[in-house]
């Protein structure tokens, strides 16, 4: 049995998939690609696929992680190519490594996010972020299956700053291509999870910031925070190097276009 670790994306309109949608799509793609999957024993055998966190529905990601086990040795790069071809455009397999032991979940304790706020000026956004960062505690309410729940967003936010960007081509409407504010933030994975939505709600709480159209969030990277507040690539040990890697630059992000 061989264990492989995969990093994949959730781009473009595929961001509307839920984690369950992704899981089903993945399992079918593994079968179509002819991956010799290992199956669990027992009454109702399941392919051995373990998921590491998952970006929420509606949120895009450049860095999602999953582990799969196979019963025959496969070449990681061949698997990457075959699986990527079997997956819909937008779920793109970026890297596959053979697991060098250890626990992948323990190598991830934070995410960096890029949140595009169409119709919000960079100045307005920066002011809200500044006010938010100056506080010790920002409580927001979140609707869960069990009713309303109050969470403190502030401690989870490690860093936040604002970049400016001309409006995304997907939303291109004549006369609307003014610069919009982009929030770049690193958020620690705590319980309960603080999502980009919660951070935006916190900005509304502290600065009355209400985007005119729904914001578009993208997870850029996941990893373990080092002392300098940077994310350590979770595959670094599997690759046999200990290189650290910052968040991928925004320009590298490819939107799925059909």
């Amino acid at each position, binding site marked *: 049995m061989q264990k492989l670790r995969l990093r994949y994306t959730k781009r473009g309109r*595929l961001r*509307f998939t839920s984690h369950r949608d992704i899981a089903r799509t993945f399992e079918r793609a593994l*079968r*179509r690609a002819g991956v*010799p999957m290992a199956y669990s024993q027992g009454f109702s055998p399941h392919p051995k696929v373990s998921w590491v966190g998952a970006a929420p529905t509606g949120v895009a990601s450049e860095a999602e992680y999953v582990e799969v086990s196979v019963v025959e040795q*496969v070449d990681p790069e061949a698997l990457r190519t075959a699986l990527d071809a*079997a997956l*819909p455009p937008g779920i793109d397999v970026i890297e596959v490594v053979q697991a060098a032991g250890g626990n992948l979940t323990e190598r991830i304790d934070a995410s960096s996010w890029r949140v595009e706020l169409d119709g919000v000026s960079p100045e307005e956004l920066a002011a809200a972020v500044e006010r938010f960062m100056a506080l010790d505690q920002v409580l927001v309410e979140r609707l869960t299956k069990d009713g309303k729940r109050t969470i403190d967003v502030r401690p989870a936010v490690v860093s936040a700053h604002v970049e400016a960007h001309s409006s995304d081509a997907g*939303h291109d409407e004549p006369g609307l291509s003014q610069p919009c504010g982009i929030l770049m933030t690193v958020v620690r994975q705590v319980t309960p999870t603080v999502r980009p939505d919660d951070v935006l709600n916190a900005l509304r709480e502290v600065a009355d910031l209400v985007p005119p159209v729904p914001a578009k969030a993208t997870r850029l990277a996941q990893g373990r925070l080092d002392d300098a507040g940077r994310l350590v690539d979770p595959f670094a040990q599997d690759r046999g190097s200990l290189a650290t890697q910052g968040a991928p630059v925004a320009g590298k992000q490819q939107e799925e276009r059909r």
Partner: protein
Amino acid sequence: MTVESVFPRLEPLLPRVSKPVQYVGGELNATLKDWDETTVRWALMYPDAYEVGLPNQGVMILYEILNELPDVLAERTYAVWPDLEQLMREHDVPQFTVDGHRPVGAFDLFGVSFSTELGYTNMLTALDLAGIPIHAEDRTEDHPIVVAGGHAAFNPEPIAQFVDAAVLGDGEEAVLEITEIVRTWKQEGCPGGRDEVLTRLAETGGVYIPRFYDVEYLPDGRIQRVVPNRERVPYRVFKRTTMDLDAWPYPKQPLVPLAESVHERMSVEIFRGCTRGCRFCQAGMITRPVRERSIEGIGAMVQKGLEATGFEEVGLLSLSSADHSEIAQITKGLADRYEGTNTGLSLPSTRVDAFNVDLANELSRNGRRSGLTFAPEGGSERMRRVINKMVSEEDLIRTVSAAFANGWRQVKLYFMCGLPTEEDEDVLQIAEMAKNVIRAGRQASGRNDVRCTISIGGFVPKPHTPFQWAAQCDPDTVDDRLRKLREAVNSDRSLGRNIGMRYHDGKPSLVEGLLSRGDRRIGHVIEAVWRDGGRFDGWSEHFSYERWTGKAAEVLEPLGVDLAWFTTREREELEVLPWDHLDSGLDKEWLWADWQDALDEREQDDCRWTPCFDCGVCPAMGTDIEVGPTGKNLIPITPVGKGSPVRNPALTNT
């Protein structure tokens, strides 16, 4: 004319609605063509939520057949939930296809597939959102031709004012013929306008154009006659029958959605039609004769489908799959072929006999044995003679004993309530049967924890069946019988605690009955209900009985008829039924004779195994039953993959 995608306008709305993934398209095996490269363009709709509509085989088949033509484009659209409908109205986003997100109003044809009448209000929503006038008479050449198909189209009279055309029967060849007529008409420069193209469709004899027929009524509200109101239009419209299923191996590339759907498997239709002759079953009557797909054709479809989809389960679909003349070879061949690949096979099992248990054992030899389903339909022996479901209680007990002895732990039994001539006792027999199943199961398995679930649906008389004349049982009687049945099940706790009971109250069935056997006057009720907010009538959380009864009273009373007149009234032999001019091939005299046999509790044999009983279909349609055996076998394809039904040499070289 360039048609733009509405996706940029839709996208900002999606974070605000539930399950947005259902609106983004991008299914595996979907086709997206260049608009300007095509001549004839179809929008195909299944008028229910995406999760129900996407797996529909009919739409999937037509979508693929049409897209195989180089100059034809077909895209799919589904009913949007009320949350998105409201936002679409606010932001002026039209009904769109999920393939190209193109506005439905821009297509040449808008085909709507009705498996059930409960989709009628959803069609009106789609038309309205698309900017297409809901009344056919208000449409111009700028609007699509609205074509209804599916089983409900065998009585399209209730939606006659909303559709331009209806097609009865198999769609494979019909859509190609319609496409050809529209293509020619367009290439000629649309001579004679909309009227001319509809007349050309009517001339084929296989496309019903409701507006070309006038309905005359008698003073008592019954129909006097239905007659064509112009030249070139036939008196009767015939159903279409695709004879050689092996020549139509569709879907070749089944659609695989990103979103979860009601059928998480791929389906291969192993035969079409049914000759069992269950008198309540409209599908069994209108899809005659039986036409089998060959064992080799089935094997190839399963193999190609699994490669194209990656599904973990294959359903061998038909109205009574165990009746295929080579079903034992098919199931064994497929089970051998896919052993060790974690591929499940399933058979909608309705026949109650030991043979069925053998098949189920074969299909589950590598997997779990959870539940087996049988459909005795009637609780008492007498009731089963009335409905022509020939199965004795001894058969059933023998069958379930075999199932429990083979490791099955649960048996699901399907019944109907409200059948013609039914008394309380007939329904109470269901409780006795379920208890006997538990007793037999405990004995056969040596365990106490066996389960039996009884699932009960309300009977709705349907057009083109021997029960088309029957009085529908009123909802109060149905509900009362179900209450008594529940008491009877629970009367003995030692058995009752192992029996589950699932049923719906009788009210939705009455509305379904109104829509099933209604005539053109019911169109006004549908419209009134829709205008009052009626949507998604197949969903209990959206269905409103009060709205339907209220609007029915409002609309029908001035016409001298009412809800009861259409539903709980028994029809007489010579009454002109609203669908009499639509020919399913069944001889009306034979249907009446079979109805009389039902009342006399006389059974009718299956023409597949016994001589022809003259239902009329084969001579009227120029068809014949097409069954095996072919004597062929499935050759095991070796090697198949490990942990996957597909072998990829690029990954593993063993």
